[in-house]
């Protein structure tokens, strides 16, 4: 930590010249317990650019933030001189309803955008908390139940403006849905967690709001895991076009499992499809029901002392559930498991009473059983620690072994050669291989 930096008048005045809304850091501005030296709120992409140029000149470690919804996920910053708070960039720049496209500043919240779009009967088809910012959702790749049908934010993003670590402003994509000109930086920045640069504007393709929705649920007893697995496969593979196929398995292997399916469309169509889907779930052995309100916990961000994301090919869902149960038994924990199983992902959440040792053990055993044996046809899953205490992250790396790691490192080196953007966020950069801090100026 470099709290003494705030004493450096030259750095402070350079930052303030670039971005007038600048504060000294304080405990209330801490990111995962790390108090920054400065917090700045740029009002425009140009101001953000000037700010990052000044930060680059001073060699500052920079942490971008939105509403902070996902800030506690992932590893905390290894150092943080400057927090760039994007919440003042909160304008919906353009909503071209006839084109089903919207261009927004990064600080616009999901709720604010939804209100604007709903007035034209449209939506950004992402399930994310209302107070999360658009930039944060893109940077974290947050996607809820409807990932099954609409994909992750990267699949809806058609244009992006970023400020690089060196302050250079760059655009990619555009404001048309169909466009293959140039590399797609939007994909690269989606899920990059602020480690490649600052997202300041995003353009999305939109979808019409459905006239009607329904939730179909199937309850399966603790001993009927196979039934739930079959129900997920049947719903996800049906031609009834569900928008989400979720599995909810609270409190581990002793509890019942619930398969939840969302249907969107016209009112008559939804009624008929929901009926057919409930028959599918019943055929798999579940107690099926149709409702016009979501079941409990639907779309909630997973939370707990540790959140682990397991991704897999849907045909191995049965063995994934078995692995979760046996890793839980091995580590003495009862994970609450939920998520878009039909899209090949589940979150395992460990409660606040879980010890660090038990959490680490759980992850280790899970990794041994899932996706750790890449065949010539590739690995088929991963176990990622989205949130955990520092000791747990020390013991087990957040990502484990993932394909393409060397190339990811090369990309990071190109975009942020000084490794100043959210240092420590990704496992690759938190293993003590950050380059030495740049030499300090005389007045340090």
């Amino acid at each position: 930590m470099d709290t003494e930096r705030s004493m450096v008048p030259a750095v402070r005045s350079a930052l303030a010249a670039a971005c007038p809304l600048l504060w000294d850091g304080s405990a209330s501005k801490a990111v995962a317990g790390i108090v920054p030296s400065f917090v700045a709120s740029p009002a425009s992409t140009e101001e953000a650019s000037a700010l990052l140029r000044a930060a680059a000149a001073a060699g500052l470690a920079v942490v971008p933030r939105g509403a902070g919804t996902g800030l506690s996920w992932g590893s905390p910053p290894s150092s943080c001189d400057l927090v760039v708070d994007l919440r003042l960039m909160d304008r919906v720049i353009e909503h071209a309803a006839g084109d089903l496209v919207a261009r927004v500043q990064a600080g616009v919240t999901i709720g604010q955008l939804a209100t604007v779009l709903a007035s034209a009967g449209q939506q950004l088809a992402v399930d994310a908390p209302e107070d999360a910012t658009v930039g944060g959702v893109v940077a974290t790749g947050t996607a809820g139940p409807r990932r099954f049908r609409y994909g992750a934010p990267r699949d809806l993003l058609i244009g992006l403006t970023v400020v690089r670590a060196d302050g250079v402003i760059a655009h990619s994509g555009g404001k048309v849905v169909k466009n293959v000109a140039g590399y797609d930086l939007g994909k690269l920045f989606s899920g990059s967690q602020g480690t490649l640069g600052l997202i300041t504007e995003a353009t999305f393709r939109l979808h019409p709001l459905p006239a009607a929705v329904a939730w179909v649920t199937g309850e399966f007893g603790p001993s009927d895991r196979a039934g739930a697995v079959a129900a997920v496969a049947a719903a996800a593979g049906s031609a009834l076009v569900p928008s989400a196929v979720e599995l909810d398995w609270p409190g581990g292997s002793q509890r019942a499992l619930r398969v939840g399916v969302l249907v969107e469309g016209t009112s008559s169509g939804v009624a008929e499809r929901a009926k057919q889907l409930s028959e599918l779930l019943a055929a798999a052995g579940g107690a099926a029901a149709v409702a016009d309100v979501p079941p409990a916990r639907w779309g909630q961000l997973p939370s707990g002392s540790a959140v682990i994301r397991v991704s897999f090919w849907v045909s191995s869902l049965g063995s994934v559930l078995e692995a979760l149960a046996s890793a839980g038994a091995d580590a003495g924990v009862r994970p609450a498991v939920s998520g878009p199983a039909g899209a090949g992902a589940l979150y395992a959440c460990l409660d606040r009473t879980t010890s660090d040792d038990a959490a680490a053990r759980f992850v280790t055993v899970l990794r041994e059983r899932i996706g750790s044996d890449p065949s010539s046809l590739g690995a088929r899953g991963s176990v990622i620690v989205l949130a955990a205490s520092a000791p747990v992250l020390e013991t087990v790396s957040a990502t484990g072994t993932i394909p393409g790691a060397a190339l990811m490192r090369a990309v990071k080196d190109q975009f942020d050669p000084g490794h100043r953007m959210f240092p420590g966020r990704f496992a690759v950069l938190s293993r003590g291989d950050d380059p030495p801090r740049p030499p300090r100026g005389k007045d340090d």
Partner: protein
Amino acid sequence: MTATIQALVPRMRDICGAGNVITDPLERRTYECDGLTAHRCVPALVVLPSSAAEVSAIVAACAQAGVPFVARGSGTGLSGGAMPHQDGVLVVMSRMRKILEIDPVSRRAVVEPGATNLSVSKAAAPFGLFYAPDPSSQVVCSVGGNVAENSGGAHCLKHGFTVHHVMGLEIVTPSGELTWLGDGTGVTAGYDLLGAFTGSEGTLGIVTKIVVKLMPLPEVVHTLLAAYATTSEGGRAVSDIIAAGIVPAAIEMMDALSIEAAEAAVRCNYPAGAGAVLIVELDGPAAEVEAELTTARALCEGAGATEIRAADDPAERAVIWAGRKSAFAAVGRISPAFIVQDGVVPRTSLGAVLAKIASLSEEAGVRVANVFHAGDGNLHPLVLYDDASPAETIAAEELSGAILDACLEHGGSITGEHGVGVDKSRYMPKMFDADDLDTMQLVRCAFDPASLCNPGKVFPTPRLCGEVPGHRRAPHPAVAAGQAEIF
């Protein structure tokens, strides 16, 4: 043949077998262009590998010798993306065409890059599944080429582009290493290199295996054909359908000249005298599509349709599609030569841009037939000219460029699905500024610092990787010393 290439020949023969290394000048000439025949270049050497290990060895040998290499699938690309390098090796992927696996429960297929697009859907059909991206060349184009170009197709309005359906790639990096991007789950860990690689036009490496998402075949498919006096009336129907909250699987439009050409080529029997024909396809669960069909039909009528035809069985639908699918080739019937343009505009600007194209066409005295994916604003103006006349050729090329300018003026793009390749790299600075292009090339520098992988494509000016002070080229010292772990 240069000494460097000559020295590579025995190495390549060791890797692929003598029969799969082509040195003969005449045989090499058969690979001089892809689907865009205006750009030609005979490769110095052609190799036809049969496995990922062979591709890896080929690329490693090229990297070691400092020789450029270009991958080629079926050669149907329309932007010269697979145009060979005169001093380089052309790596032809068409022997690697196996469908390796269909996992119906996961809705995934694992295929080799030379497999044709349609062969994936054919292999998936017995399981009630299909591969959604359907470029019009799908009978012959390769999935590897689709990945390179992020190919679209008539149905990507609803179902998305190639990038939305590629869940994992095994690639050979430009240094010759075999690695996976993504794991087939569709859930990314770390940077989304899978997304960044897809659509990079063969400049970041060579794909050796592809995991694609399969979708359940729709319960029903309905196709409507509506005839209009003018394209602007047809355009109104498109806007009204979209405004009604319907996302059709496809909305295609053809103007009078392209209808005339299609009629001459395949006797598609579209309504006589129509100034525009609109094709609207709706797919999905029967319970939804019936309602959408009623609405769409009413909106088509409301916009002034002079005739509407509907089809719901495959044979009848094929009749409606016949004219549209033949359109590119059909204009060959009414013109000695033509340029297929590929611009995009916001859908609401379609009318204005079509009017602009008409006036540009009139001013230049060059005919333009318009075929387009109206739903997503992707125009394919076919610029007709006589290539025996140098003056007409120049006028056609200028007109074609002016059409792209018109697209950009309306906030559009220089390419919706054909790619930049060699053909449009000079237009890139009109769409992106120097900083944008420089930033994109940081990705290239990460993958291909030596700039050997399909060089000269996409970007007008290559970035000299490493020119920025402080960019590391070698592994981090801590990594090299084994003190740090990369992921």
